């Protein structure tokens, strides 16, 4: 396209144009001219991204159509030797145009599905402009096109998941050789420094001062947040966040990974810097400055009454505040009224102030940092510390409060706690319209989990609560440093995800903080200096002062770079670590056969992949991308050369997150999307099934509003088992007001929390052992599930389908072994069957079913096309997430070979994790037909902020894998990218 500097609108126009052209089947060039014209017109528009010509892949002998593919995909694919290129890329962004193409050939879908979040913002504007240009098509269509046309789009490249599989002995299965050119769509972020329109942004800090800065209008939340943290000299920033208020009382957290503008919409650019996750033990924070900000937050919370305290506690905390801010009590300086300027309590009284003053005298000698620590030690014990309250009604309409905290969900009626659901007890969190649901584990002796619903004041409130739950669960519950959780969970229903680091990660990162403690001024530090006269200044404080100048004002960019470097370093280490952590669950992979439309379960954990992907959100510059492509290409070539033969063409599984119907309206396209999504979700749920087999529960949820749950009764008490639950599907395509989230519980001892019952610990350990076996899913055992799972519907908690089929595992496993292809009608069984993979495991610890099957079924179909369309109301969030999976594999080892299921000798899963990458190594040893085979699957999840070089990381990973196991060959590389395209919070 053009390299000219373009405004934001220009870009859009271009892309629109391209999209239109595509639709018309015209070559791209045709669109260029008009696009440029437009861009000139729109020169006044602010711009962030400028269009840069996306190179078409030189190596691809593709038709013109293929040339249209987004540059990103080309970037990778073009380096692949044609013989190895089995294109299985599939992109589901908001592929409105896809319906048709899919009908004809799925391969083409990949070309189109690139959508970008940035697109949604300027819709109205764009539409107008496009109307001017292009009349034939409706605005919606045009937008769609623009979305799907990748060439000129600035890419948000979120992340890639890389899988490298090595097989020592490969089966000889020569299948049709796929000569098709691999072309994946990848959008390239193009950010030439051009005229940038900026917006002034104000942030109220915790000490009440205001920080303002200029931001590009399209900047993401992270930019602002980083600026603020830099201003504050705060490194342990993961506990904090930026709030914006919709109304006076409706606070929303600014999502770092999304554009600010899309989140606040017409609201003023005014934010509040707040603590988002209250650390349960503030003493574990690394830096005093972090504790100081936490103190400031708590003082606000207490003074405002959000954090209730007794009188005694008010006075005690107040006295520590005085000590921290004013230093030792000085009878001369501190007259009787010196306290009045502080607010210690919502209703401060004379007595309280007197009491505070008395206590203040007793703290003589405490440094400000010590006083803050004492303050926190007391504040953290308050029962409402860190509890985020939400108004709701229970099923009977009684007013209650839902409190989200580090340990779970608390239910209050008035001030009384009437129930509590610790995270380990919660299987799923979801919302639909204004209802919020949690599904909890069955209690002892119970067979079925129960779902509890709450009514929130409105849809937005329900969604807010849901998001807060997802974030808290992720932050506090997932990812321990030694045995990091596979992923931060995620949700399919809404595209929302928690994109930050978890507490475990941030602690880990904090340990690396190597700077002199920064000096910072407390709000009344002037007085402090005076009052400190007689008091000894602590050594640390002095050093702080000394180092003040050197440490201050560290540019945020440096930090980012550091992170990136760390992530890559980690990647390099990503070899097999023999810690034997049984983290892996069987992985499922959905592979869609272009023609047969069947899904194949391939033994990969889609959930993990997906969820990890959802965490990634990157912008890349063109240069970076090209560079990366180059490095990758080299690796790819090597990889290709080492691989023997091509495999039959397959569609890689693709992952999709719900798309919003609201903005883009063509319904048939939506339908298509929905279907795709369903398929994807089936896969996800299958994964879940496997995971939950360990604890005897299987759940299959798909998109259409009906849920199939399969429970396997096992000998074990399922209530205490760790579950690796996948994020659940959601029926957002039909109703975006739904969001689901299944907390991901890890079977790691370290994760076991205090609140868990004693028995649970034991059981967990047991299960860990089991999981080891279960996890090994030989590739051979593949299940093919028909692709058209239209009837398998998204889980709607209200209308749930529960199927309990306790005793079927054996049969199912047999099915799997035989690699049966099942009919659509049987799909539920098949899903069930997936679970039975587990039985392939020879280990004696295999869970057996002791009870006859019980099937309960309740079917509710919510969605038909009409309804879906209707549902797209104002309240529907607009979120576009793009998922892309590209698989390169060498032919010899095909999952279908699994027909002869081997005997599993051993299986091992190892996970290592760094800040931005998660490496999971899955080693399976099997005997098939007298031949022993060792199979290593590596999953590398690269999660990161804008600057991580994914391609390089991928390249590095592949290289690394080859080096580590020189005697093995790489048979498959799956690259899965997830990009979030649009803001979800549109309504």
């Amino acid at each position, binding site marked *: 396209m053009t390299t000219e500097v373009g405004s934001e609108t220009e870009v859009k126009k271009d892309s629109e144009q391209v999209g239109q052209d595509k639709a018309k089947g015209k070559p791209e060039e045709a669109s260029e001219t008009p696009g440029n014209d437009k861009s000139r017109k729109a020169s006044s528009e602010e711009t962030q991204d400028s269009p840069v010509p996306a190179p078409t892949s030189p190596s691809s002998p593709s038709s013109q159509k293929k040339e249209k593919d987004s540059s990103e995909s080309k970037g990778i694919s073009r380096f692949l030797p044609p013989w190895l290129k089995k294109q299985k890329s599939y992109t589901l962004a908001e592929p409105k145009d896809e319906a048709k193409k899919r009908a004809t050939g799925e391969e083409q879908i990949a070309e189109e599905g690139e959508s970008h979040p940035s697109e949604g913002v300027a819709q109205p504007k764009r539409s107008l402009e496009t109307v001017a240009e292009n009349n034939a098509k409706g605005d919606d269509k045009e937008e769609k096109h623009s979305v799907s046309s990748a060439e000129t789009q600035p890419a948000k490249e979120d992340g890639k998941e890389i899988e490298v599989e090595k097989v020592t002995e490969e089966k000889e299965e020569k299948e049709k050789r796929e000569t098709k050119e691999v072309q994946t769509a990848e959008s390239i972020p193009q950010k030439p420094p051009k005229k940038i329109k900026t917006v002034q942004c104000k942030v109220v800090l915790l000490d009440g001062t205001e920080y303002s800065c200029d931001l590009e209008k399209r900047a993401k939340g992270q930019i602002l947040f980083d600026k603020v943290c830099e201003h504050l000299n705060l490194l342990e920033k993961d506990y904090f966040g930026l709030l914006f208020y919709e109304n006076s009382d409706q606070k929303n957290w600014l999502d770092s990974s999304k554009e600010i503008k899309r989140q606040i919409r017409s609201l003023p650019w005014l934010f509040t810097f707040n603590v988002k996750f209250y650390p349960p033990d503030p003493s574990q924070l690394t830096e005093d400055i972090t504790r100081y900000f936490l103190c400031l937050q708590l003082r606000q919370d207490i003074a405002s009454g959000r954090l*209730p*305290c*007794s*009188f*005694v*506690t008010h*006075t*005690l*905390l107040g006295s520590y505040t005085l000590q921290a801010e004013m230093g030792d009590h000085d009878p001369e300086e501190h007259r009787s009224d010196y306290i009045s300027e502080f607010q210690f309590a919502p209703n401060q*009284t004379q*007595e*309280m102030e*007197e*009491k505070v003053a*008395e*206590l203040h*005298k*007793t*703290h*003589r000698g405490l440094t400000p940092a010590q006083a803050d620590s004492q303050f926190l*030690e*007391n504040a953290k*014990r*308050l*029962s409402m510390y860190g509890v985020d309250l939400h108004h709701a009604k229970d099923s009977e309409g009684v007013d209650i409060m839902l409190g989200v905290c580090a*340990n779970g969900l608390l239910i209050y*009626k*008035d*001030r*009384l*706690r*009437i*129930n*509590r659901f*610790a995270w380990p007890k919660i299987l799923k969190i979801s919302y639909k319209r204004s209802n919020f649901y949690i599904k909890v584990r069955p209690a002892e002796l119970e067979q079925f989990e129960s779902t509890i619903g709450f009514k929130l004041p409105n849809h937005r409130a329900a969604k807010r609560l849901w998001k807060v739950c997802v974030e808290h669960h992720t932050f506090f519950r997932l990812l321990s440093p030694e045995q990091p959780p596979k992923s931060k969970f995620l949700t399919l229903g809404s595209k929302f995800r928690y994109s930050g680091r978890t507490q475990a990660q941030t602690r880990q990162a904090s340990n690396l903080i190597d700077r002199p403690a920064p000096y910072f001024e407390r709000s009344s530090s002037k007085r402090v200096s005076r009052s400190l006269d007689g008091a000894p200044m602590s050594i640390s404080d002095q050093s702080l002062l000394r180092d003040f100048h050197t440490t201050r004002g560290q540019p945020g960019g440096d930090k980012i770079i550091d992170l990136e470097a760390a992530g890559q370093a980690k990647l390099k280490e990503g070899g097999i670590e023999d810690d034997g952590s049984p983290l892996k669950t069987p992985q499922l992979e959905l592979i869609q056969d272009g023609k047969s439309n069947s899904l194949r379960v391939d033994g990969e954990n889609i959930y993990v992949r997906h969820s990890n992907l959802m965490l990634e959100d990157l912008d890349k510059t063109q240069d970076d991308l090209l560079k990366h492509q180059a490095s990758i290409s080299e690796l790819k070539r090597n990889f290709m050369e080492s691989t023997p033969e091509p495999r039959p063409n397959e569609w890689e599984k693709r992952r999709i997150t719900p798309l919003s119907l609201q903005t883009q309206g063509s319904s048939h396209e939506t339908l298509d999307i929905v279907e795709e999504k369903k398929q994807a979700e089936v896969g996800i749920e299958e994964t879940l099934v496997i995971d939950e087999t360990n604890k005897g529960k299987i759940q299959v949820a798909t998109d259409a509003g009906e849920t199939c749950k399969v429970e396997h009764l096992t000998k074990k008490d399922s209530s205490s088992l760790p579950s690796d639950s996948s994020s659940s599907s959601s029926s957002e395509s039909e109703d975006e007001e739904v969001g689901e989230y299944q907390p991901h519980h890890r079977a790691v001892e370290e994760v076991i929390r*205090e*609140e*868990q*019952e*004693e028995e649970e610990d034991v059981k967990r350990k047991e299960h860990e052992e089991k999981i080891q076996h279960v996890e090994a899913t030989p590739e051979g055992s593949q299940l093919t599930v028909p692709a058209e799972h239209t009837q398998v519907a998204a889980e709607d908690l209200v209308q749930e389908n529960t199927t309990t089929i306790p005793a079927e595992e054996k049969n199912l496993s047999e099915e799997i072994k035989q690699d049966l292809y099942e009919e659509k009608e049987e799909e539920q069984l098949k899903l069930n069957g997936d679970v039975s993979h587990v039985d392939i495991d020879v280990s004696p610890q295999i869970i057996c079913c002791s009870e006859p099957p019980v099937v309960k079924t309740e079917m509710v179909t919510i969605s038909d096309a009409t309804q879906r369309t209707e549902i797209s109301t104002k309240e529907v969030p607009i979120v576009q997430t793009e998922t892309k999976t590209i698989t390169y594999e060498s032919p010899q080892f095909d999952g279908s070979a699994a027909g002869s299921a081997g005997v599993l000798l051993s299986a091992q899963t190892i996970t290592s994790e760094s800040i931005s990458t998660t490496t999971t190594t899955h080693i399976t040893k099997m005997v098939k037909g007298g031949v022993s085979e060792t199979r290593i699957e590596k999953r590398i999840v690269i999660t990161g902020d804008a600057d991580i070089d994914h391609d390089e990381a991928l390249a590095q990973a592949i290289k690394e894998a080859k080096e580590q196991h020189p005697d093995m060959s790489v048979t498959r590389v799956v690259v899965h990218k997830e990009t979030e395209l649009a803001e979800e919070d549109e309504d």
Partner: protein
Amino acid sequence: MGRGRAAGGALSAARAGGGGSRAEPGRSDPPASPRSMAGLGGGPAAFGRCTHAVVRALPESLCRQALRSTPGPEVDFARAEREHQLYVGVLRGKLGLQVLELPADESLPDCVFVEDAAVVCEETALLTRPGAPSRRKEVEAMKRVLESLNLNMVEMVDENATLDGGDVLFTGREFFVGLSKRTNQRGAEILADTFKDYAVSTVPVHDSLHLKSFCSMAGPNLIAIGSSEAAQKALKTMQQMSDHRYDKLTVPDDAAANCIYLNIPSKGHVLLHRAPEEYPESAKVFEKLKDHMLIPIANTELEKVDGSLTCCSVLINKTSEL
């Protein structure tokens, strides 16, 4: 518990009406040693600390008029008095507490069960509104004596609220309030408003008089619990509601699960429990607590009118000077 200095002072007029507003402290104390002040009761380590105990003598009317859940043998007043004197003697003599003994009131047959009239945590006292109308006046004397201790006082004046202290289990970390015939939701709410620092969870109590009829704290992190189905169910509820995981000490007899744990500086863990003559099997369980100084106390007579060990005293930890 409360190591924080109390806002002591003259009888501060405390009131907690329906809103359960916090009482204002009446005066100021001389500062106690600052470093020792941990706030919020000083955490679990301070659990069971006690300096004062409020008890009340038995009225003779107790024998015939005291409320009882089940008809049964008449109370042997003389024996009841002896047992009670022994109980008071242990608190005062053996454990060195300052025991404030209120005189009996013949018009209040249940007045010996002082626990129900007040809940004291740290430096704050909540004067209850007992569920049994005949017992409401018991609070008056309790109010007087607690005022003399300069506690922050909160009164439960809401006429819709009822609360018996016997339904309140304080674990050192949080409160559990049994919702029973004697205690209702409103009463629990006022308690929650009074002790804002702590989580207050409600526990349904059906088959017994009070929550503490079948459980109590036997140590800083240890819940003594009876074996009955109702007791076990209540324990499960409490476990579910709590962020903290408690140890449990299960005893065969529900009544024996009501014991008194104290942390006396010179003596360490002290546990007053029902005598082996009464509940031999349960006593054996207590005897396994090697770290505790065990003091068996018979309570045969008052048990006939639903009295248990904790019922007969209000324990107070007064760290600030009077």
